[in-house]
């Protein structure tokens, strides 16, 4: 029972991170119908910007715990930085190719991804060494349920992620801007005829997706404080799994991305705990294959309008 609950809790914590990253993949796909391969690198940037800010603000000393607002400040600053980076990427790399064949954009995305990875490794950015993220939240055990300790870091992390997803849900389905996003995603040409500023909406989508990725990066660094260097295989694998989450949920579908994130995290961790931890990546990718065979559009994929 302890093992089941522990795994369930870890699954929700990891799943909320996958979901946050998957949202960025899915939103960009929804509006532009292309996979933004640089997205997982924006996530990495979010984690490393959080680390840099925490060190600059002097929270690196072990044992000292900054007030809660400091963590919040770093989270917001990281989201703003990555939002700006996302905006710049779209403006400089993708917008000039708006009318070009989709393959060109795809290859550009790979180029942007490599650029971010390699610039991140430069001495005057983050360097090539793994670093320890200072702890911004005091790691208290909030309570013990059936032998499973609930850590403050995990609870606050998952809580923040879920809160962000609720805000996004509200933004997309309850605001004018959200309606504009949905309209652009539905049919760009008609949306622009209806007086929607398509460029602005697409820019906003990138800013939104990138800042969610930054939030995921921050929460990831809180949960796993040993940060690998920006081009490490860890990040590639994480981005890959978040992408799988977006596809499983139905790429282009915001709720699907959230569902997919939690689903693959639970499958991965329960598989690792009860079957064999050696094959954890295989569970994730087998699910991808099964979903693609049975429901090629993804679990919630049907709700997306077909666009030719």
């Amino acid at each position, binding site marked *: 029972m302890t*093992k089941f609950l*522990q*795994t369930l809790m*870890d699954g929700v914590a*990891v799943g909320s991170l996958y979901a946050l990253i998957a949202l960025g993949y899915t939103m960009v796909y929804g509006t532009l119908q292309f*996979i933004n*391969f640089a997205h997982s690198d924006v996530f990495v940037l979010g984690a490393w910007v959080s680390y840099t800010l925490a060190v600059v603000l002097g929270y690196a000393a*072990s044992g000292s715990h900054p007030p809660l607002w400091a963590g919040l400040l770093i989270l917001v600053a990281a989201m703003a930085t990555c939002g700006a980076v996302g905006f710049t990427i779209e403006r400089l790399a993708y917008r000039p190719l708006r009318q070009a064949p989709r393959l060109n954009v795809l290859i550009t995305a*790979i180029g942007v*991804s*490599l650029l971010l*990875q*390699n610039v991140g*490794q430069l001495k005057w950015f983050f360097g*090539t*060494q*793994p*670093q*320890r993220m200072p702890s911004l939240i005091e*790691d208290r055990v909030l309570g013990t349920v059936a032998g499973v*300790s609930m*850590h403050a870091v995990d609870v606050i992390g998952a809580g923040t992620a879920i809160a962000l997803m609720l805000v996004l849900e509200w933004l997309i389905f309850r605001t004018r801007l959200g309606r504009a996003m949905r309209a652009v995603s539905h049919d760009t040409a008609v949306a622009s005829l209806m007086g929607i500023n398509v460029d602005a909406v697409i820019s906003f989508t990138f800013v939104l997706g990138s800042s969610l990725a930054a939030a995921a990066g921050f929460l990831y660094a809180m949960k*796993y*404080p*040993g940060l*690998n*260097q920006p*081009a*490490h*295989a*860890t990040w*590639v*694998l*994480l981005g*890959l799994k978040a*992408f*799988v989450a977006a596809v499983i949920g139905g790429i282009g579908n915001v709720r699907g991305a959230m569902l997919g994130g939690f689903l693959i995290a639970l499958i991965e*961790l329960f598989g*690792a*705990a009860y079957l064999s*931890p*050696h094959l*954890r*990546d295989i569970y994730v990718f087998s699910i991808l294959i099964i979903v693609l065979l049975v429901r090629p559009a993804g679990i919630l994929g049907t709700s997306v309008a077909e666009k030719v």
Partner: protein
Amino acid sequence: MKPTRAFISLLLLGMVGCGGGGDKGGAAPAASGTVLIGHYGSMTGSEATFGQSTDNGIRLAIKEVNAAGGVKGRMVELKTYDDQGKSQEAGTAVTRLITDDKVVAVLGEVASSLSLAGGRVAQQYGVPMISPSSTNPQVTQIGDKIFRVCFLDPFQGWVEAKFARETLKANTAAILYDQGQAYSKGLAQYFKEAFTQMGGTITTEQAFTGGDQDFSAQLTTIRQTNPDVILVPGYYTEAGNVAIQVRKLGIKAPLLGGDGWDSTQLAAIGKEAIEGSYFSNHYSFQEKRPEVENFVSKYETAHGQKPDGLAALGYDAARLLFDAMGRAPSWDGTALAKAIAETKDFPGVTGKITIDPERNAKKSAVVVKMEGGIPVYVTTIEPPQ
């Protein structure tokens, strides 16, 4: 789509890496009067301190030999290529060293998987290679041109088992290893054999894949078996991450590692979580031997930090190579390999080095304990007679 992307990224990354990997750029042929030797190592990447320390050690040895008039009157020059800790890069780096730069011998790598990749290339071209610190037995089994100056994992696993049984009085042990690393898998296996032979019990063996960041599933299982000690035979980045999660789950048992833990970054990542854990190593800078004291002071003057085990082995490998070059009648692959193979009782910083018929070195090991962010010398364990 995505797997293809990862592959392409890696491929392109590799190309980018190659472009900037050269030490001075371009393949300048050795000027007359100098002799070129090659080094390939992880100067960047997640094992970056391995390559950097080794390179520092080699450069110190070269400075000394050149100050003393060079080898047979010729100045030694070093060419270093970065393999970023990737096997495919290691092969490319060694090919470049041999075909472009025409080095007489190659030094490297630290990680056994990378030495295996680079060693196959060196053997194919018939150029001698000395691995300073790859401990997996397979490395020197590649062929007659591949040597090493460090002990092997069967011995290291035995040392750890002996230390766990006799010093830590552990009856049970759990293992968490990296299934993607020859070094980690081998060491886990040798520890298990030795530990059970000494009457201990392995409670569980768990694996992860390099790049995994979440060990909660494996550690939850380990916690259930309540072992006296946990063996984590990986590299320092993972060891630090594992330590953080071990303590978070409330596991109190000390962690035990191998020479792959030897890096200043271990304490930087693991911080308080790694305190009180032990690892076996090739030497400790706190050892009270004249060779060690002499080397530590020279290294600190040159590089401004305490030399880790990899720096010491890099230094030893380079000096042993110069010694063999001094004895060899010519510097072609066969003659040089013969001279290296004949090395006997070479006084290294990490102990006396005699190359055995399997091209390995038989040496003692030390065990150190992480205290206050530095590895503190605990004991020396001699090989069984």
